[in-house]
């Protein structure tokens, strides 16, 4: 209920137009990866999905941030059923990172779609930053799951990092074509290609 009203409010505040370049009514689990600049990002992607897909879509979020306060915990666990993972900043956390990717794969196996933000954190300037490697490992682990780039426009202007009150400009959500995987592609190439797919969507939009 809270989730539904938040979704409606987000659609209203962002006045977002939604564009689909891929099949919007697909029933199979997918990985949606989007650029990240605002708290509204996930809610907007989620509310832009058709209702059946929405019920099976879970955001992947950083546990360090979302477990910090009771309210954040409530939103992450109860409202949006987030898959909380540890954001790893150094290589020593390799095992933690592996565990995170395994958790995501498990969700996919249970028929859930994932909404991920591969930049790892919210950007202030509206550009698309470098991707963390989680998306690559997840893609390796579940090579048959569709990867859908989702470009979010203007969200950094509507509710930027650090602000609590939104300015209701018009936003835009573009669901791109399914991202093509190449056999045996090395990690850096994959990540930069995935990032590029997202940037392209923004340019075309």
């Amino acid at each position, binding site marked *: 209920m809270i989730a539904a009203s938040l979704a409606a409010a987000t659609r209203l505040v962002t*006045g977002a*137009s939604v564009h689909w370049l891929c099949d919007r009514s697909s029933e199979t689990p997918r990985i949606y990866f989007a650029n990240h600049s605002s708290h509204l990002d996930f809610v907007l992607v989620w509310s832009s999905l058709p209702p059946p897909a929405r019920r099976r879509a879970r955001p992947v979020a950083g546990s360090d941030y979302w477990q910090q306060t009771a309210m954040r915990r409530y939103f992450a666990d109860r409202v949006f059923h987030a898959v909380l993972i540890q954001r790893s900043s150094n290589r020593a956390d390799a095992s933690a990172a592996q565990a995170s990717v395994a958790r995501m794969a498990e969700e996919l196996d249970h028929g859930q779609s994932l909404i991920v933000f591969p930049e790892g954190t919210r950007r*202030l300037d509206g550009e698309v930053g470098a991707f963390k490697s989680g998306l690559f490992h997840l893609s390796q682990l579940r090579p048959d799951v569709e990867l859908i780039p989702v470009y979010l426009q*203007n969200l*950094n*202007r509507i509710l*930027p990092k650090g*602000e609590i*009150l*939104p*300015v*209701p*400009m*018009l936003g835009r959500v573009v669901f791109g074509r399914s991202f093509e995987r190449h056999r045996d592609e090395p990690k850096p190439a994959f990540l930069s290609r995935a990032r590029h797919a997202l940037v392209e969507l923004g340019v075309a939009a």
Partner: protein
Amino acid sequence: MSSLHDVALIRLLGGIVGLLVVASIVGGLMRWQIRGGPNREMVDNINARIRAWWIMALVFATSVAIGAVGSIVLFTIISFLALREFVTIAPTRPADHRALFWCFFIVTPLEYLLIWFGWYGLFAIFIPVYVSMLVAIRTAVAGDTEQFLQRTATTQWGLLICVYFVSYAPALQMLRIPGYEQQNAKLMVFLVVVVQLSDVLQYIWGKSVGKRRIAPSLSPNKTWAGCIGGTLSATAIGAAIWWATPFGPVAAGLMAFVVTVMGFVGGLIMSAIKRDRGVKDYGSLIEGHGGILDRIDSLCFAAPVFFHLTRFFFVP
């Protein structure tokens, strides 16, 4: 305090519905005649526009029927949506966030509250003087001086066009015209009908006989024939519905003429802004028309002039 006791008002609104019925029939005939032809896209667009006109006319008529509150609420929403379209294409920076929040959620409602209170003195200077200062102050306090002048000026312009100018339409209700008490709703309907009809007539004249463009760098669709034909026919219609206004037939025609010319100029200016920002339409809210700002661009510039002319000549 519904305004539907007024027979002239009902005739005006009935006239709008009649026009739309005619337009829908003509649109239907055009589609039937042109089936699959080369101009199909244009005819489809015309029919989409007519459908949108029905919705706009019904919303407007309903708000007028409700009375003063109805039109104040409607124009508050229009201003809000217009400002949203304007700010979306404006080159803002993160430091503008708080100032913009004020513009949307404090300034816009307050401007219309002043109309509701009938406080003309403050209404007339609130945005041009005090909010202009507020925008500059709030932006300066945010500390980012990059393109400061351009950013503050853009926000101030946005507020003037989308909120201040537009609010002059419902503000017509504040005027106390002797012998015209409780009838000001018709004045607003007169303004809106003349301005919007003029847009439509300019389009029709331009498409049917227009050749030479007036300002190709601003708007490729505006031709001399469209402008002159549209202005004159809208003036004639304004004169013909003089009975709904406190003016005589000649004065009503002159008013309609000024309003139409201002509307035309407004359309040009709003296109210039679009060109500057590299967009074709301000939005996509209204099917076939573009955004709200694409529809009310002419009203923005006509409303203040119409208000002040009426106030100067007809309010003692």
